[in-house]
């Protein structure tokens, strides 16, 4: 299978003192959902920001679809949803979607169509005219996700996208993620929740900036002779 992302010997020292990543070498398959699973402070966000190209990589290399991460040629192909909302909370949901769609190069008319589609896709059609700051945490999260989905990116990088969502919404979003993957989108989804790991095609377990394991969930359980990703994680860290 074709690989979407190749990371080679990536090490990262944050603020010159905190070792966020240690000699990470990984390949992410195209059209798959890869879960980046690990506790808070494991290095997930640093790895994600390196892939999206927001962090310079002084040591090691990150290549996305054959280009250096952050290259101008990747800006329409890669979309990122950060843990912060990163939307205009003083604008309405539709205004946010329209604006970001325009920034992705769509005409006013195209942007209006995109906004309608994404409102439906994220189950936010009835909130189109609501100002984002008036919405609940989960709804705001969906606005941020909808923005990331603009323009059908080839790579979707989502940092903890299902935090604060109720189980029904979470389940619906996972269905959406699988639909996107089936249509060829590569997804990287970070989570500190081990429960979500089983929904991924592939898992990267990370702790202290080091990759503990990289395999499909069933193979991980088989290899560690455990029954859950949480047990596998504990087994791998020697507890």
């Amino acid at each position, binding site marked *: 299978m074709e690989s979407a992302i190749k990371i080679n010997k990536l090490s*990262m*020292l*944050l*603020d010159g003192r905190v070792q*966020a990543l240690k000699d990470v070498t990984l390949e992410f398959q195209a059209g798959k959902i890869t879960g980046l699973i690990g506790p808070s402070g494991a290095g997930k966000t*640093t790895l994600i*920001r390196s892939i*999206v*190209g*927001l*962090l*310079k*990589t*002084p040591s090691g290399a990150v290549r996305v679809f054959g280009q250096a991460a*952050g290259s*101008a040629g990747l*800006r*329409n192909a*890669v*979309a*990122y949803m*950060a843990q*912060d*909302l*990163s*939307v*205009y*909370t*003083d*604008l309405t949901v539709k*205004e946010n979607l329209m*604006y*970001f769609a*325009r*920034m*992705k*190069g769509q*005409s006013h008319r195209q942007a209006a169509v995109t906004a309608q589609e994404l409102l439906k896709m994220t189950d936010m059609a009835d909130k189109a005219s609501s*100002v984002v700051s008036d919405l609940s945490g989960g709804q705001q999260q969906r606005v941020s996700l909808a*923005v990331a989905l603009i323009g059908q990116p080839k790579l979707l990088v989502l940092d903890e996208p299902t935090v604060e969502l109720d189980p029904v919404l979470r389940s619906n979003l996972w269905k959406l993620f699988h639909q996107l993957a089936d249509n060829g989108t590569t997804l990287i989804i970070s989570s500190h929740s081990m429960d979500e790991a089983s929904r991924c095609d592939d898992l990267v377990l990370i702790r202290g900036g080091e990759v503990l394991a990289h395999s499909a969930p069933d193979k991980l359980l088989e290899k560690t002779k455990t029954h859950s990703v949480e047990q596998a994680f504990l087994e791998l860290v020697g507890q």
Partner: protein
Amino acid sequence: MSITKTFATAGRVLGQLRHDPRTVVLLFILPPVLLTLFKYVFHDQEKVFDNIAPMLLGIFPMIMMFLITSIATLRERRSGTLERLMTMPVSKLDYVLGYALAFSVVALLQAIITSGVLLYMLNVSVAGGALATIVGAVAAALLGTALGLFASAFARTEFQAIQFMPAFIFPQLLICGLFVARDHMADLLQWIANIMPLTYSVDLMKQVTTAADWTSVHTGDLLVVLGFTIAALVLGSITIRRQERP
């Protein structure tokens, strides 16, 4: 660079203002109210008020625009929206010019309202007329916008952004010739005043107050103010980074 993205950004900034009516009221009402207050402060010295009022018209909009722009752009930097934009095919200049365009519209409206109050309600006579007064006020407001964009790069919090006003603007205010004629100040201060943009903004308004015709001195002052504005916008866009150092 894309002109449509610049216009879309300007539209978005104006949309944000539209959702904040209190700020809109303050933007358009505060400068005329302050000028009116000054009128009554100089109740028995009408001549003094007539002389300084047009210059204040070049200062109040600049200060307000400086504050609004620096806080608005700092909010973008801190909330993650700017970072998100930088992952998209958006040029830094699109973003900065979008802000400049949006606040130019605001500055124009503000200048029209404030000049109207100054000329027709407070009955201050400005030799250069209404149009020249508005041009001077808009140029000053644009300068405030550009300096605010630039200054926001050095602030990490809203508190710091507000502190930049006394740091960036107050020293210029003291030596620009508003309170004491520049040739009465110490040589060093005169030299510093000569390289400060507010000096030329206030000078332009002085010229507008006293000269009936638009002269090369007006044009020179206006060009210096616009030059500083463009330089601050370019520097502001340079301070935006697509990639952080770890």
